[in-house]
């Protein structure tokens, strides 16, 4: 049994088709969505998304946005969504180092601190998803 899944980001439509299972990290923790889920809306956190399709399982780094289930149709509206095989590990590593060196400084304003922290977490998510491929 499958449900229809649509994944969109500002860069375009990433995936449209049938899926057997979707697992994403929401702001409250990881949830799994199976067919015939009730209508549901939750904002997304940063983490790994796993999608089980009839053709196999795919993993991705999924950051920000929301997931909505409406009448059995699942929509994943993400700020960034990168398939595990498309992640640039080197870039993520450089981003991590940069963020860490920024965080170790003490003269940062609160806003910069938050930005650097978010950057670090994004880099870590990307790396953990990218390495597991």
């Amino acid at each position: 049994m499958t449900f229809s899944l649509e994944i969109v980001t500002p860069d375009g439509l990433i995936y449209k088709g049938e899926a057997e299972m979707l697992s994403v990290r929401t702001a409250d923790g990881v949830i799994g969505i199976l067919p015939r889920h009730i209508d549901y809306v939750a904002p997304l956190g940063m983490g790994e998304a796993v999608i089980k399709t009839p053709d196999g399982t795919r993993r991705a780094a999924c950051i920000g946005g929301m997931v909505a289930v409406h009448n059995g149709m699942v929509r994943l509206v993400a700020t960034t969504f990168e398939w595990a095989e498309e992640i640039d590990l080197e870039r993520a590593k450089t981003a991590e180092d940069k963020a860490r060196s920024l965080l170790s400084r003490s003269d940062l304003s609160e806003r910069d601190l938050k930005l650097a922290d978010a950057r670090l977490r994004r880099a870590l998510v990307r790396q953990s998803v990218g390495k597991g491929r």
Partner: protein
Amino acid sequence: MAGVSMKDIKLRIKSMESTKQITKAMEMVASSKLRRAQARVQNSRPYFRTLYDTLNTIANNTENFASPYLEAREVRKTCYVVIGGDRGLAGGYNANVLKMAWERMEGTSCCVVPIGKKSLEFFQRRGSEILTDLYAEAGDDHVGDCFSMAKMLAAGYSSGEFDEVHVIYTEFVSMLAQTPASLKLLPLEYTPMPGDTESACETLYEPDSESVFEAIIPEYLGGVIYGALCEAVASEQGARRTAMEAATSNAEDMIASLSLKYNRARQGAITQEITEIVAGAET
């Protein structure tokens, strides 16, 4: 006399030709950038639509639900996000959008978030209150920038720093027409859907509808700003392409008329020479 003017004309033709080459090259660059910008506008649309739909559904279906983002309050200060270009030579692109923004702003209490170097320069010159100049480069627009800007705007709005947020950009109507447009971001306007409250009661919001709503707002704003930016970039390239096309054809016209003049002068010089020789032989 004929010789001097012939040389002058030749020089002018040469300089016209090099100008034409430049405008032609700029036209080509603009049209290739325009294609990319158009594709991006198209790509970002489904994202934006889905966000808006969800927001609309939540806003509609949740009764006794108050969010500061939905409530219109007395407007004491307005915040304008004005999207211009980084460079000139795009016909009336910058002038049109900035003029419209200024008409709205003049005499009111407001602050601006300029996007694009031209926009920043314009408001600096007028001495407007500039909220931030972090986003001065429209060309290197990055989705992340739009989202951080949206977060800042949402925070500023809920803390009462300003009571309305508008974005002023240039709408890409077609290759040949781009019109400045204004969009109200906050407070949010949603279209009420009659009936259909039944399905909503069953919807599960986690942790609850209000926090979902609050979390989605900045996302939505970021999406709208990104969409407007995509439109503006496409418009800029379109305007530049049209302007450069006109410049190229003007240069061609000038070259044609100058060549005609040149040839006439050359012929005149030859005729004169022959007359002089014949006159000399006869005497």
